[in-house]
């Protein structure tokens, strides 16, 4: 028996050591912003005991766009003394998000702010959070509002203005009768699908002769796949004049394909992405201009809304939300906080941005 007991005890000791070290080493990402906040703002921004605890869940972590959102969220957390947890899945899978949100329910956070990968499948777990008394908001993309019971959607830009801006840019550079294709994220991504619909609406009204050579092509938030898909479409439809890349990774993927096929100047590329990933394409003229809101501001506004919601400052009849350094923000339809109109990035202004 002793011969069996000793190794078992050794094993426990080893595991405890591993787990303690593992937790110690991996934990800093969460508490660091709080500590940094305390240092920089001489204690003013440090989340006190009983501070509002907000879990911000992006679609995925490790891409420019959501890293920029994280910067804004941390900035607001520091200013407002919010205890922020920013964590999302390593890939854009709805089931991983659901699992993480379940764990945030267990951790009894005050607010869950999620950018859902799938508006329908996320709804039940958000509803469960609401039943447990946790506030729920969505940002970047909305969840099924009724089924999820989410209270607010922080909308980065009204969908109609994005659809209009993209189509107008295409018409300006490729002509009102352009032949184009849309490279989207996943075919289930809610906001991309709404933009596609809004683009069609504006196109039919303003440029009825503009047309798509094929259906929107999915790239699954994968730049390499966007690259391949764009090449395939251009090969299959040599008459093509324009490519829309409407996610932050599909636009650089599409631009890279056009550049490598030596079609710069012949095929117009535009869409939505981050300035850092687009700088080289804008500078060599592959992309004349593209649009986006400022994701730092989006993360910032999300945490502002989360805090005010938790503290009861945001009520069902509120007409505006306090965006702190961003000013008062319009609330549409009673539950959509609007960040603002999209911003057009060009060769002239792109160097002023770093995200």
């Amino acid at each position, binding site marked *: 028996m002793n011969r*069996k007991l000793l*190794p*078992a*005890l*050794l*094993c*426990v*000791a*080893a*595991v*405890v050591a*591993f*787990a*303690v070290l*593992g*937790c110690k080493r*991996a*934990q800093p*990402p*969460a*508490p660091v912003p709080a500590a940094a906040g305390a240092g920089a703002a001489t204690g003013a921004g440090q989340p006190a005991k009983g501070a509002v605890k907000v879990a911000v869940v992006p679609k995925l*972590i*490790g891409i420019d766009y959501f890293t920029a959102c994280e910067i804004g969220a941390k900035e607001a957390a520091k200013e407002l003394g919010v205890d922020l*947890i920013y*964590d*999302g*899945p*390593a890939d854009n*899978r*709805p*089931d*991983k998000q*659901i*699992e*993480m949100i*379940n*764990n945030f329910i*267990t*951790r*009894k956070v005050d607010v869950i702010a999620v950018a859902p990968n*799938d508006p*329908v*499948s996320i*709804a*039940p777990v958000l509803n*469960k959070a609401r*039943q*447990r008394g946790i506030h729920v908001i969505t940002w970047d993309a909305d969840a099924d509002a009724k089924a999820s019971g989410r209270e607010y959607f922080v909308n980065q830009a009204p969908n109609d203005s994005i659809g209009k801006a993209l189509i107008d840019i295409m018409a300006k550079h490729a002509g009102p009768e352009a032949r184009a294709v849309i490279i989207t994220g*996943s*075919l*289930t991504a809610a906001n991309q699908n709404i933009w596609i619909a809004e683009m069609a609406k504006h196109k039919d009204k303003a440029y009825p002769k503009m047309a798509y050579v094929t259906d929107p092509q*999915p790239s*699954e938030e994968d730049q390499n796949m966007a690259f391949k898909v764009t090449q395939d479409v251009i090969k299959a439809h040599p008459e093509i004049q324009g490519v829309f890349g409407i996610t932050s990774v599909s636009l650089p993927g599409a631009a890279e394909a056009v550049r490598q096929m030596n079609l710069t100047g012949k095929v117009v590329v535009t869409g939505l992405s981050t300035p850092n990933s687009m700088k080289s394409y804008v500078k060599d003229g592959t992309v004349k201009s593209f649009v986006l809101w400022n994701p730092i501001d989006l993360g910032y506004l999300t945490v502002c809304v989360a805090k005010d919601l938790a503290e009861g400052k945001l009520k069902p009849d509120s007409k505006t939300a306090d965006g702190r350094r961003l000013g008062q923000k319009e609330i549409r339809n009673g539950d959509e906080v609007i960040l603002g109109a999209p911003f057009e990035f060009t060769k002239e202004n792109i160097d002023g941005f770093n995200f």
Partner: protein
Amino acid sequence: MASEAIGGGAAGIVRRVFTNRQAVLLALLAGLVAVFSQTSEYFLGADNMLEVTVYSAEIGFMALPMTLILVVAGIDLSVGSILSLCAVFLGIMFSRFGVNLWIAVLMTLALGAVCGAVNGLLTAYLRLPALIVTLATMAIYAGLAVGMSKAESYRGFSDSFGALGRGYVVIDGGVPAISFAGGGIPVQLLLLCAFSLAVWIIFTRLPAGRRVAVIGSGPEAARCCGIRVERLLTALYAFSGFMSAVAAVVFVSRVASAKADAGTGRELDVITAVVLGGTSISGGKGSVTGSLLGLLVVGVVQNGLQLSGVTDEWRTVGVGALLIGATTVDRMIRGEEV
């Protein structure tokens, strides 16, 4: 009878059920629970412990047949892809063709068994290496799933179907009822317990299970004993496919949507749990209880790390390190046995 067993041979039964490797895993589990209860105040609650099993169950369904397949020195890399294909098939049958949901579920289970049987036939009768056969079908089934669905996701499943993956059994006024708000036993945990018990009984108590063990120690010897090796192997792989379909049904119910990436990468989670449980990848040795313990350890690590604020990418590092650590310790302990 039960009291006799406890009085006389409790230690013997415990020793029989938990071999040395499992003692190591139990100690490991105790250590992990001790650590995580310190790093997160929410870890130790009964609700959270049950929550761990919700995510482990889908892996667990596939880990049961995988244990038996590893015992006969085979491997099934296609389980994740079968899960994807079955999820998509269920979605298409229900959403596109309007088949009654429960009939669609039965069809899905049948499809899973057929997919598995294909693996089994190729492995057993054509004598192709299981690694190559299932590596190929892993690509084929995943490709079919993406192709059939065109990367679309299927939705519109009813709430009653959602009970399988999101429901909890609660006792409401003396009667068991299904709740969606938690606070009870997750439905898939009950399913996993039922399947585990069945597999455990078959593997350790019935002739068919003993035949599996004999094949594990040498297929030629098994043939000499008059065991129909080919038939049994085919059945094992078909069972593996069937259980992947069970996992698919529970997954679709839990996530309320069916998409072709449902099972991507799951085969590695399954094999991790089984190998952690002490089943040898080269065949001949394995146990169902070990796999369940391995499953629990992985689930506890994933959950505990998240509750302690460790982000996703570091959690996978943790699981990988754990597998190497546990195997090393186990080998050191039983140095002379291996």
